[in-house]
């Protein structure tokens, strides 16, 4: 957990440091563990319940690790209007148990959907074949 203490120290003196800390912890470890919650709570003089409550509130934070890489598929209205729902089914088929297909509500590319994001890489104008190819290459 040495990295965790570096993360905590890096945010000392910041106003409202909890979200930045949780982002860094999630980026470093892939999830926010019970152990991390305990250490963060102690460091910020919060209760564990307070930190847990924040972790569970936000869709971005995970309590448990998931070794699969994720593709975030937009299924908001603008992508729906361009056929994202059919795409979602295709993505699930291609993903199997190897890739995690997550739903995201809007990537801000609403005129060129359906869209997806893998890591920080954006993909637009998707169709079934393109999604299958993207997932196949993950």
């Amino acid at each position, binding site marked *: 957990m040495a990295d965790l203490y570096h993360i905590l120290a890096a945010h000392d003196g910041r*106003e*409202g*440091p*909890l*979200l*930045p800390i*949780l*982002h860094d912890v999630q980026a470093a470890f892939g999830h926010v563990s019970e152990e991390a919650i305990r250490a963060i709570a102690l460091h*910020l003089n919060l209760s564990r319940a307070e930190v847990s*409550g*924040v972790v569970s*509130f*936000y*869709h*971005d*934070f995970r309590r448990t690790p998931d070794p699969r890489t994720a593709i*975030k598929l*937009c299924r*908001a*209205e*603008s*992508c*729906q*209007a*361009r056929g994202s729902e059919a795409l979602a089914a295709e993505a699930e088929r291609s993903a199997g148990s190897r890739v995690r297909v997550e739903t*995201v*509500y*809007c*990537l*801000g*590319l*609403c*005129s*060129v*959907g359906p*869209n997806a*994001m893998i890591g*920080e890489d*954006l*993909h*637009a*104008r998707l169709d079934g074949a393109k999604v299958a190819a993207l997932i196949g290459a993950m």
Partner: protein
Amino acid sequence: MRVRISDDALAVACGADAVAARFAALGHEVVRVSSWGMHWLEPLVEIDGRGYGPVAASDVEAILDGRGKQLAIGVVADHPFIAAQTRLTFARAGKTQPLSLDDYAATGGWVGLERAHDLGAAAIVAEVTASGLRGRGGAGFPAGIKWNTVRLAPGERKYIVCNADEGDSGTFADRMVMEGDPFMLIEGMAIAGLAVGASKGFVYIRSEYPHAIRKMEAAVRLAAPLIAPFEVEIRVGAGAYVCGEETSLLNSLEGKRGEVRAKPPLPAHEGLFGCPTVINNVLTLAAVPFVLAQGAQAYADYGMGRSRGTMPVQLAGNVKYGGLFETAFGITLGELVEKIGGGTDSGRPVRAVQVGGPLGAYFPPALFDTPFDYEAFAAVDGLIGHGGITVFDDSVDMAKQARFAFDFCAAESCGKCTPCRIGAVRGRETLDKVIAGESAASNLELVADLCETMKFGSLCALGGFTPYPVMSAITHFPEDFGPRTQEAAA
């Protein structure tokens, strides 16, 4: 040869990096600029002012050999989509390098901030008030009045918070400002700081916008000496739609669950960390440098009624010519969808457009004569929200869209108030019964009653506005809630 290609996230998602790399590999100088906002043409390549798009890496050689005629669009600045606009906030779009301080200063950057230094707090607020600028996040509250409340509020510490949690589907103007013209937003925040006596500003950007986050972080570092002693810090959201609501956003910034706060107290009196806080949308703050540089009247000269200035309208969904269209208030919805947007991308008839994001009403073509104006939209039970228009063709099932509105509200509700937390779930269940043909007429009555409760009983716009898409779908497209009409006939 000098080749200009956008580095906006949308252009990149459409393959701009590969196109740029191909030009570079062939020995040409590539300049990465902001996007013109003609999204159907991205990746757009500009050589000596003339445009080509949409370009794939495999088209590059043909363009260089003069064989790219089928992709040629002529002089980009003269394109009808651009020529028909009034670009005040997006004046630099397509023209400058987003992170070039030289480009920014050469195109009128920092003039507004300089004038603000000369004017002083009260006169800055008077100028913003006189411009008629209203909050572009959706509520349309006059910016000058909000600023004046914070200016007059007692307190040693005050904050400027920029709401960049652009979660509405069909909107991308905030993202384009942050990625294309970040210094303009920073200048607007610095002016707001002078106006109310705040020395610290936060930009709260949603985590789904990694490109905007990186650009803004770089821009804040570059601009720091120019706005000092005012400081700007970038904060990243964590995937909660409700954090676009201002009090929820403030809680999130403080490191808490993004639950909505009851108002009063207003954020202007007790906002971030209990201090007086200006919280404005990206587009509101981004409009401020123009107001200060050109004067309030120059801004107020545009628009209609109580909606002054311009609105960056975002054409999205199943639309042929999608992108950013900044125009004075008053243009009709039909002009935007049919004339500017060119109808649907699928070529099928337009059946519905949703204006204002997931919490906005669905409009049938029969209401396309509605002018784009806060009051005119309210008069037909709609809202312009953040200016996003999502187009649907005739394959859309409006009962499904109404159900999705409840579903989305249920998934994103912060849980603080009952009408939203419980209402969304019950609404979805009841619509499921309607869709299954179970006592449709009485269940639709129940939905209408529930919507009334949500509209007037919810703490914020998530629960309060979810009735807009639901009820507009039921009102304007009753045929999609089929069993109801069958029952009525019986």
